[in-house]
């Protein structure tokens, strides 16, 4: 069966791999950083959390240089078509490095993790591993590579969720995350195998070619797409694959919650876009795609369900972390709206929305940590009167929440505006979805504003306490995030342009 390859063949394979490695530098660099962190953790002993955090941030910032160098390279597929270097991937590489850096900043101020008894070495190493995994999720063009990348992200995420070993809530969250994750990985893999069974290809472009040339069985196709959608929907936290997210977001250490809700969600979206736009063919006519597969309808239903469920259930939440978990389900629904349009404008709007989500969600969680450090809880009732005691944090949280609602003059408003305008530019076809989106945004106004309401208009039970000082660094980060959220709300053109530039790739497939 298996013939030994000749020397010349092997040499040519090796030279292809060597050539591909040149396009893979940021990932290799970050993998090396991962190992450096582990070695440093072993060498430096117990009390090294600050040192490791500094190394992690320095390393992540360093990787920006290698990503920047990639911008000059031409779009290409390498490693036998398993991996791509393109503008879309580069946008997400920047995004994930930024989210990694912010996650470290959140970790540094978190009191719970500060007190962790067995050190933070594994934590920072896993954080970097997750950045690599998410980059690979955004750039993989092969079913096997996609699965591998997703597992790398998932496994790191499970361990980080359960990092507070002594906290039963954290362990419970990790176990639930693991069990749901295992099931959804299995579904994804099953979907992939069906797709492979139909086409005998694992490369996304070739799958599309074979499907177009040889046809397909509609029943098997819809089955495969549904299963893959389930696997990806789990990463994105979209209804009906969201059941893990409230418990996991509440139980996990807060920096991890923020990291999961931004980083791994965005990675899921990147993968979904690449997969659906490239592998599953479709035409301009929305209802009669060349394959007569109405996966668009599936996405529409998932999106509508996520918006309605996330926003409505959030109303009754008493725990702020849980509230933000449900809001992140709702945001998955809004992001899906941009994908449903299936054109460059829609892709661009998703990228802008993700950028705004990065700032405002990390910002909100940052302040939640600052407050939890003080009050020891994330309950809504404990936020009473905090606006006067923590003036900067209170003001910043209000800005982030306004941005999450999508009101001007914040970045969140720009993101939502772009998504809805992309949707409405398709005519009346998606009017009902836009209506749901706008109505649920109004609902979200209510529950987001409960937090400032408690902070400013209700009196604290302990009014005798004066103004609480947070550290200088924490103040700086809070203020920076707040100013950026407002700044990009007014001067969004650079980001919008860069997102447009990054979404060009799919223009070729979509138009």
């Amino acid at each position, binding site marked *: 069966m298996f013939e*030994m*390859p*000749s*020397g010349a063949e*092997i*040499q040519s394979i*090796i030279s292809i791999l*060597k050539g591909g490695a040149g396009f893979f530098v940021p990932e290799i660099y970050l993998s090396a950083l991962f*190992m450096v962190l*582990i*070695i440093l953790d*072993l060498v430096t002993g117990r009390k090294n959390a600050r040192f490791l955090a500094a190394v992690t941030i320095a390393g992540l910032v360093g990787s920006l240089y290698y990503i920047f160098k990639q911008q000059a390279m031409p779009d290409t597929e390498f490693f036998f078509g398993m991996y791509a270097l393109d503008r879309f991937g580069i946008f997400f590489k920047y995004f994930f490095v930024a989210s990694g850096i912010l996650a470290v900043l959140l970790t540094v101020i978190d009191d719970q993790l500060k007190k962790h008894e067995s050190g933070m070495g594994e934590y920072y190493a896993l954080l970097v591993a997750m950045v690599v995994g998410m980059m690979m999720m955004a750039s993989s063009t092969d079913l096997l590579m996609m699965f591998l990348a997703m597992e790398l992200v998932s496994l790191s995420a499970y361990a980080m969720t359960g990092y507070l070993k002594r906290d039963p809530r954290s362990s419970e969250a990790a176990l639930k995350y693991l069990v749901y994750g295992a099931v959804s990985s299995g579904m994804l893999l099953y979907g992939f195998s069906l797709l492979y*069974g139909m086409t*005998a290809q694992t490369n996304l472009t070739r799958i599309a070619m074979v499907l177009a040339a*040889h046809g397909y069985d509609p029943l098997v196709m819809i089955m495969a797409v549904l299963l893959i959608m389930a696997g990806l929907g789990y990463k994105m936290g979209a209804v009906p694959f969201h059941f893990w997210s409230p418990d996991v977001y509440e139980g996990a250490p807060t920096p991890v919650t923020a990291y999961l809700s931004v980083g791994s969600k965005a990675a899921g979206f990147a993968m979904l876009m690449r997969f659906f736009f490239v592998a599953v063919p479709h035409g301009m006519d929305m209802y009669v795609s060349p394959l007569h597969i109405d996966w668009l309808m599936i996405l529409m239903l998932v999106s509508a369900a996520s918006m309605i469920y996330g926003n409505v259930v959030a109303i009754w939440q008493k725990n702020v972390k849980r509230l933000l978990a449900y809001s992140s389900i709702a945001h998955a629904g809004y992001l899906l709206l941009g994908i449903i349009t299936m054109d460059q404008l829609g892709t661009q709007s998703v990228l802008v929305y993700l950028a705004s989500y990065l700032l405002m969600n990390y910002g909100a969680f940052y302040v939640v940590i600052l407050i939890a450090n003080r009050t020891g809880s994330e309950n809504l009732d404990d936020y009473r009167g905090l606006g006067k005691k923590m003036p900067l944090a209170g003001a910043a949280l209000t800005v982030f929440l306004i941005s999450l609602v999508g009101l001007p003059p914040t970045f969140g408003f720009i993101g939502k505006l772009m998504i809805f305008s992309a949707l409405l530019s398709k005519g009346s076809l998606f009017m009902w979805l836009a209506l749901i989106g706008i109505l649920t945004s109004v609902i979200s106004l209510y529950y987001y504003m409960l937090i400032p309401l408690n902070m400013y208009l209700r009196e604290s039970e302990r009014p005798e306490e004066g103004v609480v000082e947070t550290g200088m660094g924490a103040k700086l980060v809070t203020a920076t995030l707040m100013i950026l959220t407002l700044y990009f709300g007014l001067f969004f053109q650079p980001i919008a342009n860069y997102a447009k530039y990054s979404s060009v790739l799919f223009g070729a497939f979509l138009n």
Partner: protein
Amino acid sequence: MDQTLSGFGTVFVFLVLGIVFVAGGYLTARMLRPSRPNPEKNSTYECGEPAVGSAWVKFNIRFYVVALIFIIFDVEVVFLYPWATVFKPLGPFALVEVLIFAGILALGLIYAWVKGDLDWVRPTPNIPKMPEMPNRRIGKANG
């Protein structure tokens, strides 16, 4: 396309033959063997020792750590073996690559070692809430 189909056909034939083989074995045994059950025979087989207690005992977490480390090196061998068979035409580049690969895995072992995950008898119990497991049980779980 034809080649692929025949490939799947082979798998199918294997599947059918496998089912027939196992089912045939059970069926023949059922027809030939005498049926004289007693409590001894009906009890769970635990390496020939009498079964003690329920199967739902808590396993010591250290078994998993050791199993994981074992799997790492198991997989390493799986990769090293095909590499060794084509080592000659691969040249020095492949040697460096495999050294990196083995080095990464060795780092994992060193990590587990330094963090004390390889010490079977810990100086202090790491999880105070968990009751100390009787040695006999550990031996059982192992066997």
